[in-house]
């Protein structure tokens, strides 16, 4: 039973890892498109609502589709002033209770509520109110899908915490995330100065 669930958890982790690593390229796309929009508007004195709307479609895609990926890497902001020094087991309990009572109810509720809004936009073929704007439904679809990815990641984190408490796997929150941006910067500077850390 638990073994099967751990397999499911690994599959979810792998999926969100892939989704996140593909999605983050859209940041570059958004930067380039937005720069292009600004230059075209002032250089050629025209602008296209579709291209302006693509900017925030990309932004929304990134933050919604990376929600699960961000949870996988434990990067959603916490206030751990009271609980930061607790043991690994106590923190696992916090995550289990938090996932069951905070994350899953809210994410499922929002998924549930936003699905009909998408169906509505899809059936009426709703188009943005801006002249030449984009179809609305792809944007509406991002919400339930993004929250689905988040729900799945929540389940995966839940499975890993329970497995840890049962002694089946090492503490999942102590996974090596590789060097941070700050560490990489410090390393680069030290290397250039010919010093060893």
């Amino acid at each position, binding site marked *: 039973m638990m073994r099967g669930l751990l397999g499911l958890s690994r599959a979810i982790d792998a999926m969100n890892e892939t989704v996140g690593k593909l999605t*983050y390229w859209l940041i570059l796309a958004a930067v380039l498109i937005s*720069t292009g929009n600004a230059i075209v508007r002032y250089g050629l004195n025209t602008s296209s609502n579709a291209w*302006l709307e693509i900017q925030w479609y990309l932004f929304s895609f990134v933050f919604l589709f990376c929600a699960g990926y961000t949870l996988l890497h434990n990067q959603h902001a916490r206030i751990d002033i009271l609980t930061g020094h607790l043991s690994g087991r106590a923190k696992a309990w916090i995550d289990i209770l*938090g996932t069951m*009572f905070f*994350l899953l109810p809210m994410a499922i509720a929002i998924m549930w509520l936003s699905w009909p809004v998408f169906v509505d936009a899809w059936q009426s073929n709703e188009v943005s109110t801006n002249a030449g704007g984009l179809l609305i439904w792809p944007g509406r679809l991002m919400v339930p899908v993004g929250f689905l990815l988040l729900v799945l990641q929540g389940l995966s984190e839940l499975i890993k915490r329970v497995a840890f408490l049962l002694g089946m796997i090492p503490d999942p929150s102590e996974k090596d995330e590789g060097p941070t*941006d700050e560490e990489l910067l410090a390393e680069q500077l*030290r290397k250039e100065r010919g010093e060893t850390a």
Partner: protein
Amino acid sequence: MTQFLIENMAPLMFGALVVVMLFGYPVAFALAACGIFFGLLGIQLGLLQPSLFQALPQRIWAIMSNDTLLAVPFFTFMGLILERSGMAEDLLDTIGQLFGPLRGGLAFAVIFVGALLAATTGVVAASVISMGLISLPIMLRYGYDRRFATGVIAASGTLAQIIPPSLVLIVMADQLGKSVGDMYAGAFVPGITLAGLYAIYAVGITLVRPAWAPALPVEARTIKENSGASGTKSLAVLFVVSVIAAVAFAHWKYPQPNPPIDELLVLSTAVGVGVAFGASVVNHVLKLGLLSRMAERVTFVLIPPLALILLVLGTIFLGVATPTEGGAMGASGALVMAISRRRLSIDLMRQAMNTTAKLTSFVVFILVGARVFSLTFYGVDGHLWVEHLLSSLPGGQIGFLIVVNLLVFVLAFFLDFFELAFIIIPLLGPVAEKLGIDLIWFGILLSVNMQTSFMHPPFGYALFYLRSVAATKDYVDKVTGKTLAKVTTGQIYWGAVPFVLIQLIMVGLIIAFPGLVSGGLAKKAAVNTDQIRIEIPADEGGSAPLEGSPAADDASKGGGTAGDDDAAALERELRGGKK
């Protein structure tokens, strides 16, 4: 029991908010769950309409289509690329050499470069790490007082929080329903003043404790003429020539008595920088030898940050670009710069995009959580409860400001500024407005206040990053061969204390002299009436209520779900139609 619940729903909900946030689970989800739970409870008790949650999808849509927040990933990405481009090292090395022979010179260099990095990279951690690895060893080598050296580095690093294009100012503007351009314009003078106060403190140190900040000996200088001359005279001449060119341009272009001040400043600065750059390039290429090495070096290292500042802040202040577009152009500019310096690798790109994506997601999700919470909280009139609490404080405006500043000061130890901005600011903003407080001024006051938490022992992030790069063991200095003692955590903490006091003085100055903030804005208003053809960012956000503003909150509560869309559309039209 039921009666008690009905009458005290708002305070109970606020209490629950505190409890769930301190639980240690990601706040975004805790907030949203709290909102949904109390929403269901309120519906059960008949306090709220059963259709309450139908407004949720529209709220999320409003966050998605919020152009202002789009600036967050752009500026984050720009900073991450820029911090690895080598710009900070060049600046610190060269400006350190330039000011070094003065007493306290290295401290001035750190403050000056800190302000430049704040206006470009905008990442506190990156500034502190760069200065901690480049400037601190030199300061220690030549006998700077350890507390003074670490304090000036940590404080200068935090300037990134208050000098535009800071992320704090973006979310602050968004949540207060003001335009980011106005917030940037308002923060400019306080940011520069703060850097000035740091410098005044450094001057004071050189007068009272000259041994704490000695001048660098001549042999420490590597950029010099073959004759051994420093070459600073040549730099001074180049500087004066550039300033004359800028002033002459200003007089030629704007002969009228009331010139548009923003445009004049930005364009004449561009001319001055262009002249200096042109002269250095011609001198270098033709090997004229008219300029000293120092003059050439200083010009070349200052060009990239100044060009970026003109590209990003210049276009925003001119009203040519929205802050979002400014951010995108800045990010593209950073990419171009990193490529031209051969610093851009695929690994760096991935790293920067990865961090940006995760930061964007967690930041926007805090906002999602806060908006789900506020849907219920405003539904049970929680905002009226908070308003009543805060407006009944003794002392009117001043009483309110003192309490709010103390509150934010304390909360900033536990919450990061995104949490503060999304949860606390929307509750404070309307009360401030009712008391007749200008919201731009209020936002900047709170931003300076929050900046303090970055350097306040023992939690300040700037101190943490400085600790991570300062020597933890005694070491042998490579240049002098002498053994230098490690930097203790106590030295870092004590070094920050005078600068925390300077921050508090700055908060006091802003309260005592509101003109520090609104000075730039008053001029803008005058420009606006005289000279219609320049459009200023002030026009964009102001006319359409931003999504985060309480006004938009009430609109969606009232069942009018179209409000958000219309506001966004109106805003876009204003932007699109603007020359």
